């Protein structure tokens, strides 16, 4: 599809450690569009968070982008920028981080500073990215707090994060992420630490803000329920690769990759019969140092084709609905 706001192409990220090379991402590609939500889903170690951190160029040491491109569409007709070519601490990258791309983490308590008021933390971002005066930035902070549904923002603006509940802190985190007026919002497990009724409030809030601001949203989660509620397009990751990508309805109702199919069958659902066993995937996700050869899912795969699947990684095959799948078995069906 053309007109992508952000296009990630064949991204490879490695962590060089004493024990060896940890291949966190092994060629990840996807696009993000205005007003649309891409859901990145997978189990621990699949690389979904490293993907987000790579886009923002905040991968922890000793992680390093080995190859690939991250093209961000230029504003006002400017040419696209390849974020992998920018030094992580350059002025341009800092302007993009927070300015063009906002980030919401799982745990607001660790990502908000305990030493500054909520208002100061929002105003700081506003001033850095929009060059407003101190007074104007303070006023804008109150406006943003109101935007994210915080009651009595004129009072809350002078409070510290520890004075707020988990749900309110996550709203503040979203206000900080929006303070630079970004086009893209990356939300990494934004509701995982929240209770279910608070989760519903935050998901509704993100939907409303996306609509109002025509944001592109990258939603990273392990929760298939959240993906089903929120995403337009879904990318399923396993050990550093997208194994299947497609429209949300196709992923849930006609999954092509055996991993997607099994993952969907193994999730507990409120719609299920009580006291019924769940379908399981044999074994567990291998340690990234012990990545199986070929398709890394083959030791757990029920459709495993001997001698084929362990020989080489299957290529990305395009599907009719604009998605793709990486599986030898899926090609035959």
């Amino acid at each position: 599809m053309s007109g992508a706001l952000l296009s990630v192409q064949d991204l490879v990220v490695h962590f060089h450690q004493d024990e060896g090379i940890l291949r966190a991402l092994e060629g990840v590609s996807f696009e993000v569009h205005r007003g649309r939500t891409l859901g990145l889903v997978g189990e621990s170690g699949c690389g979904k968070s490293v993907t987000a951190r790579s886009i923002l160029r905040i991968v922890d040491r000793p992680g390093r982008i080995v190859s690939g491109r991250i093209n961000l569409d230029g504003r006002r007709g400017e040419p696209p920028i390849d974020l992998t070519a920018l030094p992580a601490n350059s002025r341009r990258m800092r302007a993009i981080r927070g300015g063009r791309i906002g980030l919401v983490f799982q745990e607001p308590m660790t990502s908000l500073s305990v030493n500054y008021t909520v208002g100061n933390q929002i105003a700081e971002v506003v001033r850095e990215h929009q060059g407003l005066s101190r007074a104007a930035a303070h006023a804008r902070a109150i406006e943003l707090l109101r935007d994210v549904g915080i009651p009595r923002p004129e009072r809350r603006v002078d409070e510290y994060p520890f004075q707020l509940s988990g749900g309110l802190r996550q709203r503040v985190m979203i206000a900080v992420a929006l303070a630079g007026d970004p086009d893209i919002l990356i939300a990494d497990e934004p509701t995982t630490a929240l209770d279910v009724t608070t989760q519903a409030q935050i998901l509704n809030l993100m939907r409303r803000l996306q609509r109002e601001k025509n944001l592109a949203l990258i939603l990273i989660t392990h929760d298939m329920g959240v993906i089903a509620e929120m995403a337009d397009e879904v990318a399923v990751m396993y050990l550093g690769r997208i194994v299947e990508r497609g429209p949300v309805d196709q992923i849930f109702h006609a999954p092509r990759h055996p991993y997607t199919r099994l993952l969907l069958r193994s999730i507990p659902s409120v719609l299920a019969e009580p006291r019924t066993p769940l379908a399981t995937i044999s074994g567990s996700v291998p340690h990234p140092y012990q990545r199986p050869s070929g398709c890394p899912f083959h030791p757990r795969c029920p459709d495993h084709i001997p001698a084929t699947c362990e020989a080489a990684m299957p290529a990305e095959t395009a599907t009719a609905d604009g998605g793709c799948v990486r599986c030898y078995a899926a090609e035959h069906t």
Partner: protein
Amino acid sequence: MTLLEVKDLRKYYAIRRGLLQRRVGEVRAVDGVSFQIARGETLSLVGESGCGKTTVSRCIMRALDATSGEIRFAPGDAPPVDLVTLPRSRLRSVRRHMQMIFQDPHASLNPRMTVGDIIAEPLLVNNVGTAADRRDRVLQLLELVKLPRAAYSRFPHAFSGGQRQRVGIARALALDPKLIVADEPVSALDVSVQAQIVNLLLELQDRLGLSYLFVAHDLSVVKHMSDRVAVMYVGRIVEVAPTRRLFSKPRHPYTEALLSAVPKPDPRLRSERIVLQGEVADPADPPPGCAFHPRCPYAVDRCRVEVPELIETGDGHMARCHRVQELTLSGVG
């Protein structure tokens, strides 16, 4: 036959202020909770953080001393003992019949002990058998939780999260208990591993006739695990019913809202959810009347002044709501 009967359990914490630490109020963490668990049955306690579900489980394990109430436990043919008043000296002989499974399999296993020693520890502490007997029992337990015999002499760090949770389960089963208190036993696990542990717990229950008190916030897992479900809000049970009834025909507005808020793993079921306004009430300063009334879409004047009783509506279904007879609420599945 009733294994555990909790009657009007209360756990209050004093709030003290000032130089003299004068008592200025109290937090009613658990405020009159009653339920029963039959032999071979699973009762789930669900609710959001701070509702008191974990405090109830800790009072049952005597990790906390209850303020008042009764916890009558009848593991054998003898008449039940009251765990609230039982002298500590007699606790050990009773407690071997009730064991706990924890949320975090990383934190709850001693990293310096082998898996064999970890599982054998409760046997050793209770002077069960000779060293050879204990070794046989541990090997039998490993088989029961589907771990290889080779696990015996290895250390916890060599195992994945799911395998470590199996070690925790084997340790809990070592003394052949009647009751297992499981506090969020699968919430720290990946989806595919979570399914394996849910199935294992169901299977062990059938084989060994165990009773479970399952403390959880995830209603999807609860639906798969439970015979009956009790929903807690601000220290009280607001609804209790057989699982299918509670999910399909909830009688308390809070349960309805909880069920509505759970993300359903099917994009075709996206619909208008009931999104509760505001936040869970502060147990140190609960609202008058029904604690849920400030957030309840059905609240009337009476709810603001009078605390509702748990009202039986038939077939073991009880709800703490003044309007229980007139409201028709929607469930799921």
